Every structure is written in structure tokens, then in C-alpha cells.
């Protein structure tokens, strides 16, 4: 079932058209990457999902209702704003406690999100004294209050140094695994969400370029998927796989892993082949191809 639906949505700010006839759907239980360059319309889409803005034309539905009309809907949503908008002189724990109280929750909920986001050592710090990485953790912590069913995270890694960006992405991955919550994450750094996302919406200058599950998009745009195989005998496995017509390239990753590029249309056949290798294969994971390549192909296809 779709949790978010956009039907020919146009959003204007004065004369500027931030979104133009945007139509797309986002399924439940997915991590969706909303990808596009700066000024593409990602934040506008996020605000429409949250009900902070009203579409100029068209319809936005979240769980089948219009979010700007139905304010009760927000109890099911968690939101991380693009810019840190927190009162800087407030203490981390106090802000979280106030926000929890707005949702009718108590201290135990604050403890839970502090623990989940690793803010234990900073609970009594003033927000203004936190590094950007930790402000973003605070943002994620507040978005988790009340165990929302859908997290709407607007550029969670924006303006962070590479180390902090890595940390935030790892945190999101952990949260997804632990909480099994649906997420919509926007980013202008196209490849960075490929480890976590399984669905994507590509947007540029207010226009939706394409959307769908990454698996479908790899196939549609013929971007080669990538498998990482962990094996006891890399040489033997490589020998068996190289004969297959749908395997395009194999690379050995020390000490005992293989990186295999395959034809996108034979994804299922490849999985079957790997399972037939039996005990030779310890583990394998679909690592997906590069989102950047996919974005390039999508934009080139439209150009």
C-alpha cells in the first residue's frame, strides 16, 4: 500500500514554480531516497508531505488523507527539518522533553530517543554548543519521539563533514534495522543514500524525472547491479560464475570476497545460481549499482 501519493502537484511561491505537475507514489515499509540537486523541489515536497504547505494545484495524500487539511496525521510522522531550527540556548534534554510533552509523552520516551541516537553524553549540553553532527543527531532524536510510522528526513547529511555524514548515515541504517520504520530521506548528494534506500524519486527543477524501486530502476535504465559474495574459495566460485552469460565482471576483494557485476535483467537468475553453489557461499548481499550512474542515465534519457 502507498503511504505517500502526489497527483499532478504544482507548488508556486509567488512566481517561482517549486514543483510542476509532480506525480509519484511511495510504498510503505521502504526507505525512499528523494534525490535531486539543490533547488530541485525536495524540501517543498517534504513540506507538502508534512502539511506545512498547501499545494497550489493537484493533490498530496499521506495514508489517503491530505496532510494540510488533517493535522492529526502528524502524530504518525517524524520530521527532520533541512536547517537546524532549534532554540540554541535550550538544553538538549529539555527541548526533547518539551516536544515529548506536546505529543503527550513522558521522560521515558526522551530516554529512549537519547539512547537510540547516542546523545547520552550531551543530554545536559546547550544546543548551541553542539557540533553539527550532534545537532543532526538531536534532530533525528526529536523526529523519533512517539515512535512515528514514517520519518521524513530533509537532507540529514547537509553541511556535515565526511566523518559526521558517515556517522549520520550509519545511525539511519541502524535505526531502520532496529525500528523497521519507513523513511523518506532527501539528499542532493546523489550516491550517498544507496546503501540504505530501496526506493527512489528523482527530481530536478520541480519536475519528477522518474521513481520506483531501485531494483526496477536498475533494470529499466540498464545500470548493472552489484553483488558482494563472501566465500571460502573465491577462486572456485569465480570460475563457476564467469561462465554464466549474465555475469559481466568479477573482481576479487581481499581476503575472501568477490564483487560481481551482473546483467540487470537476470537479477533473480543470478540469485538462484548463487544459492545453487551451496556451502561454497557463506553470504551474499545485493549492493546495488551506483545511484549517481542511475541519476545520470535518467537525466540523459530525458535530455
Amino acid at each position: 500500500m502507498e503511504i505517500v501519493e502526489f497527483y499532478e502537484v504544482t507548488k508556486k511561491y509567488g512566481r517561482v514554480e517549486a514543483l510542476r505537475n509532480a506525480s509519484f507514489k511511495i510504498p510503505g515499509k521502504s526507505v525512499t531516497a528523494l534525490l535531486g540537486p539543490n533547488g530541485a523541489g525536495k524540501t517543498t515536497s517534504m513540506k507538502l508531505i508534512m502539511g506545512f504547505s498547501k499545494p497550489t494545484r493537484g493533490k498530496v495524500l499521506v495514508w489517503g488523507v491530505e496532510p494540510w487539511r488533517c493535522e492529526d496525521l502528524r502524530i504518525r510522522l517524524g520530521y527532520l527539518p533541512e536547517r537546524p531550527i532549534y532554540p540554541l540556548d535550550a538544553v538538549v534534554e529539555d527541548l526533547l522533553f518539551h516536544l515529548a510533552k506536546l505529543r503527550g509523552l513522558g521522560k521515558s520516551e526522551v530516554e529512549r530517543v537519547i539512547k537510540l541516537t547516542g546523545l547520552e553524553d550531551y543530554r545536559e549540553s546547550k544546543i548551541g554548543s553542539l557540533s553539527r553532527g550532534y545537532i543532526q543527531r538531536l534532530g533525528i532524536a526529536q523526529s523519533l519521539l512517539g515512535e512515528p510510522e514514517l520519518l521524513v528526513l530533509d537532507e540529514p547529511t547537509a553541511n556535515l563533514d565526511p566523518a559526521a555524514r558517515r556517522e549520520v548515515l550509519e545511525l539511519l541504517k541502524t535505526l531502520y534495522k532496529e525500528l523497521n520504520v519507513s523513511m523518506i530521506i532527501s539528499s542532493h548528494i546523489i550516491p550517498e543514500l544507496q546503501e540504505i534506500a530501496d526506493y527512489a524519486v528523482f527530481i530536478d527543477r520541480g519536475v519528477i524525472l522518474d521513481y520506483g524501486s531501485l531494483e526496477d530502476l536498475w533494470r529499466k535504465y540498464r545500470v548493472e547491479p552489484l553483488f558482494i559474495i563472501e566465500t571460502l574459495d573465491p577462486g572456485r566460485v569465480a570460475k563457476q560464475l564467469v561462465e554464466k552469460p549474465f555475469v559481466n565482471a568479477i573482481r576479487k576483494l581481499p581476503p575472501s570476497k568477490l564483487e560481481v557485476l551482473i546483467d540487470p535483467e537476470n537479477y533473480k537468475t543470478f540469485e538462484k545460481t548463487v544459492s545453487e553453489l551451496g556451502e561454497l557461499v557463506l553470504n551474499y548481499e545485493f549492493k546495488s549499482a551506483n545511484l549517481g550512474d542511475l541519476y545520470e542515465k535518467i537525466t540523459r534519457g530525458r535530455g
Partner: protein
Amino acid sequence: MRRSHVAGVKRIYVFSNIVISKRLLAFLVVASLLNLGLIYMILLSKLSSPGTSQESIFFVFVVGLYRVLMLNYATTIAREVKSSEIQLYLAHTLRRLEYVATALIAIGLLPLITQLAPYLAFLGVIEPSLLLRGETLSLVPLLLVDFTICASIYTLVASRGRDTLLVIIGVVMALLSILITLLSIFMVAYGSGILLTIGYLGSLITGILAPYTYSVAYNLYAHPPYPYQPQNPDFYTLPSPTTMSIISLTTSIFVLVATILWFKRRDV
């Protein structure tokens, strides 16, 4: 349904705490200084000429100071809207109507309590007969109308996130509207030609924005001590303070309803 109303009231209470705690110290310092100043003025007036006639005039100062004090949280709200901090609270289930209600509490009700209550209490201590006879309390409805129009205008501007405009409007409301009201009514009473027309128009407009001052000035000229009289018969065609208060209150309600309706649909 009732449960959702209770939850709404609770959210307003919680969010009022958040807003009020933001600049509480600054607010309390300014409110205390203003109260001390007022008490000093009352003491001076009581020592020199005890009586009741000056009470209404003193409240003109109270109104002006109250209007300055209201700016404290009005600018807080305006900055919250301007910086999009409001998104944070709306994301945590606060409704837009509840946001406006909280803004009204922080902008209007809190200064009303901290400013008017100590003043009345002090008056009750030093001259209880005034309060017991109800003369001072009879001014309260008029003061409330005055506070309401100011709070509604501040809330309208604050909810648009216009903090600089708010300060300008604050100065106009706190100082100029009172001075202009006094001046306009004086011109209607004693002016001629174009001055009379300007004074008349000024009285009608500022009477809505500063109904209490209008009432004080009107009564001052309408019932002057013998043998003084307004030289213009036009003076008596000005709306009575009661009529002006009703117009002012209606305007406040209109401004508040417009603010709520507009705020419910605006992008934040």
C-alpha cells in the same frame, strides 16, 4: 471529541510554557521595572492630591507600558515563524489554531496578569476605598478592550513572521496611538478648519486602536471643570467611548478571526 479538545488545551498549556520560558527573565525584569515605576507614580500622586479623578489618567500610562511589554513575546513568536522554528512544534502535533491561541496567551494574557494585577493589588492596599467603590474596577472592561485590540494586531503581525514591522507597529501602538488620540481629540474640541477635520478623522481611527485613551480624553473634554467647554459643537458628534469600544472590540474579533483563517492556510 471531548478528548481531542482536552488534548488541545493541554498542548496549548505545554507550548505556552515553551514560549514563555524563552525570554522569561527579560520579561520579568522589564515587567518589574515598569511596575515599580507605576507604583512610584501612584505614591507621588496620592501624596500630593489624593482623590479618584486621576485613576483613569494613570491607566493611560499603564496601557502604554502594557503595550511595550506585549512586544516581548510578540517578537519571539514573529522570530519563531520567520526562522521556521514553528515547523518543529507543528511536527510534534501542535495544531495551527493552538499555535495562534498560544501566541495570544503569551502576547496578551501574560503581560495583562503581570502588569495589571500588581497595579490593582497595590491600589487596593494603599486606597482600598477606590476598589471597594468599584470606580477603578469599572475601568477594567474598557482596559480589556484596549488590550484586546493591541494583542490581536500584534498576533496578526507576529504570525506573519514580520519582526521588524512588529517593532514599528509596537512603537505606534504603545506611544503614537496614545499621543495622537489625545492630540486628535484636542483638535476636535478646540481646532478649526483643516485641523478640525484631521482631528475628527484621527479621533475615529485612533479611537479604535486606543479605545481606553480615547475614552479618557473624550471624558476630559466632554465634562471639563466649569467654566471650560469645548468650543466646537462638532465635538459632541464624536462617537461615545462605549460606541468606540464596541467598534474596537468588533475590529479585534475580526482581526483575530482573519488571523486564524489565514494562518490555517499559510505555508510555514
